[in-house]
């Protein structure tokens, strides 16, 4: 019986899909793959990308009464489409089917490509920009971004996206981090999450099926559409046409229904102001394709990833790492054991364990891999996110264009970073044995399972830390259009406006001068809220609107 409508026959209760509802009210949304003729569109502001930065910008500027066009390369998918199957989600919602890699193929990058961007597929973890990060940015020539100045923006976006500490019991996969760390005297904390009425399912990474996750897809983008904004999906921004210090137009191509090939239809956009919010890698690539002015050779450089290493472990009890909120426990301890610009520090978290993600991450094949997979329900995994970009020995990667003009990140992993990988593996194995693991499995091609801490420690110290041999992944892409007051050090100024193109702004994670040192979504929301609000005032002459919680 459907408790909401006892008179209804026994049909399955359907979770309302706010996107379908909105489309039925007449939202101006076009799937460019259905277009049969070229288009020219003129608006006040065009925003490329509907992720953390694009969504926040769109809402504020639409609320301010400006005509806004959002351009999104990915498709518009929503809760009716989210059936919690990895095989559907990775090609539909992620960049390059969740297999985007750095040039040498050593780092696998998870980044979104859909309405809502990476916020539609992230694991809901919210952290304010750490104090040590903000201090470092200040020391390196960025004022106005101290924690006192940013507090109002953190609070605004925390309210807007229902960010709150997770009060439900952590799942066993997370508990093992807490328990093991506690035994070793390593402090842990409980995360805050951008969720409202979360069902504690654990499928945030393949699209939240209940709309509890307060991603851009169900918050700022609908709000912008409700206030007259337009949205064009399956549309790839190709290049800006600019002259002297102004952009004149933006050229886009429509993609086919499969989202891979161009359909042949072209769209030209003319706007008063252009906002690039495609995320790191994509935003610098767009500016590279546009041959945007880059007099100090900064564009695309200093792109950071929080390079992440993984250690799995098997337990006698069921862990069921696919069940329950994916991330709820963390430790920042190893970010604080040395100076921010000293030996690379790392943040400890756990990932959700889903069959495809786990099977493709674990090394090996045949009988050994099969044995690991058969024990899936008893398997835990831990992540160490390395805080890159602070030491002079960690300069990150640079974005370049392939022969077909598509974006590629070249991120050579330095010995400085490998040293952090080794130390992080030791920490993770130590915590896992302290939590009672029966065997620990560092994810490295030369590693096997170890049943004692001493065996694991010796093995981890003896491993050759090299690309492709060590599994390195990334779910956080940052930098490449750095923000700095001085044009010698930044692509954009402190107000987000490009130093050489006066009607172009960057509003996404590519702004960061270093990695964030924390899961970046809240930093992007808050800093972009500040930049977009200032832009609204500049363009309208009126105080900026304040978005309210959904």
């Amino acid at each position, binding site marked *: 019986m459907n408790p909401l409508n006892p008179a209804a026959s026994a049909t399955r209760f359907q979770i309302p899909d706010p996107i379908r509802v909105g489309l039925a009210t007449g939202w101006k949304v076009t799937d460019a793959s259905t277009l049969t003729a070229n288009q020219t569109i003129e608006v006040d502001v065009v925003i490329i990308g509907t992720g953390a930065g694009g969504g926040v910008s769109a809402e504020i500027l639409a609320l301010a009464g400006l005509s806004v066009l959002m351009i999104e390369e990915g498709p518009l998918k929503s809760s009716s489409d989210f059936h919690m199957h990895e095989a559907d989600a990775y090609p539909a919602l992620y960049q*390059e089917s969740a297999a985007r890699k750095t040039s040498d*193929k050593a780092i696998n990058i998870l980044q979104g490509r859909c309405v809502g961007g990476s916020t539609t597929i992230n694991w809901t973890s919210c952290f304010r920009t750490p104090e040590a990060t903000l201090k470092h940015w200040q020391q390196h020539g960025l004022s106005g971004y101290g924690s006192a100045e940013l507090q109002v923006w953190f609070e605004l976006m925390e309210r807007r996206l229902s960010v709150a500490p997770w009060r439900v019991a952590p799942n066993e996969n997370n508990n093992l981090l807490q328990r093991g760390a506690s035994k070793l005297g390593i402090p842990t904390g409980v995360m805050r999450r951008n969720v409202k009425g979360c069902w504690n399912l654990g499928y945030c990474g393949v699209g939240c099926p209940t709309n509890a996750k307060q991603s851009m897809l169900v918050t700022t983008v609908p709000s912008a559409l409700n206030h007259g904004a337009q949205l064009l999906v399956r549309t790839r921004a190709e290049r800006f046409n600019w002259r002297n210090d102004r952009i004149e137009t933006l050229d886009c191509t429509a993609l086919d229904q499969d989202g891979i090939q161009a359909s042949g239809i072209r769209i030209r956009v003319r706007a008063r102001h252009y906002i690039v919010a495609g995320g790191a890698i994509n935003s610098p690539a767009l500016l590279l394709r546009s041959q945007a002015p880059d007099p100090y050779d900064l564009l695309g450089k200093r792109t950071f990833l929080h390079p992440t290493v993984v250690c799995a472990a098997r337990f006698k009890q069921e862990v069921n790492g696919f069940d329950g909120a994916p991330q709820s426990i963390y430790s920042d301890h190893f970010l604080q054991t040395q100076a921010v610009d000293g030996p690379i520090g790392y943040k400890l978290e756990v990932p959700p364990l889903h069959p495809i993600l786990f099977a493709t991450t674990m090394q090996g094949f045949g*009988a050994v*891999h099969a044995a690991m997979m058969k024990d899936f*329900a008893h398997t835990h995994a831990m992540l160490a996110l390395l805080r890159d970009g602070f030491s002079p020995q960690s300069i990150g990667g640079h974005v370049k264009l392939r022969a077909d003009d598509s974006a590629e990140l070249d991120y050579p992993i330095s010995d400085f970073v490998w040293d952090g990988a080794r130390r992080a593996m030791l920490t993770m194995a130590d915590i896992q044995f302290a939590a009672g693991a029966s065997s620990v499995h560092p994810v490295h091609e030369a590693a096997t399972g170890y049943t004692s801490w001493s065996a694991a420690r010796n093995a981890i110290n003896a491993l050759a830390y090299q690309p*492709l041999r060590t599994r390195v992944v990334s779910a956080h892409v940052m930098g490449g259009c750095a923000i700095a007051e001085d044009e010698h050090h930044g692509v954009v100024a402190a107000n987000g406006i490009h130093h050489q193109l006066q009607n172009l702004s960057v509003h996404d994670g590519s702004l960061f001068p270093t990695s964030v040192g924390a899961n970046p979504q809240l930093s992007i929301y808050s800093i972009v809220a500040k930049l977009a609000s200032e832009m609204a005032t500049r363009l309208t002459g009126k105080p900026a609107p304040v978005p309210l919680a959904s």
Partner: protein
Amino acid sequence: MSSSTRRSFLKLGLIGTITVAAAGGAYRLTREHSTMAAHPYKLDSNAKDALAAIALAFLAGILPTGANARSAAVQSSVSRIEAAIHGLPLAAQQEIADLFGLLTLAPTRRVLAGVSHDWPEASTADVAEFLQAWRNHRFQLMQSAYQALHALVFASWYANETTWTTIGYPGPRTLS
């Protein structure tokens, strides 16, 4: 393979081949083989044979035991792999086309993969040895090819719901 192609391949020698391939597209050999892959990329029957043999080796230990069931499971995986390739950007599809070009040419299959028989006749032990050799290869190119095949095969296998009972994964809850 035409005689002129064979001559140019042999002239390059193994080291030269790797250098050429690493400098240009990932696995591309001589100019004769640098045709752009059509989209959507179709696996020809030789590529499917190679993939089936490779899948049998990767999935040893988790495959069903009966010969018919195993064959059906592998064919199903190969189909899923083809569909997965279609979802990749064109640059990645081209790399995969080049990789299969390399794997299905008898001389390179023999020299680079060490597999002397045609793929349907290759023993699982021989294929496993080739995979292990590429996994630990001196050249990053071979290592990255191994990783690409590993990802394609295991993603396709565990995309199939019928495999979930073997790993104790109940699947997502129904929401009603």
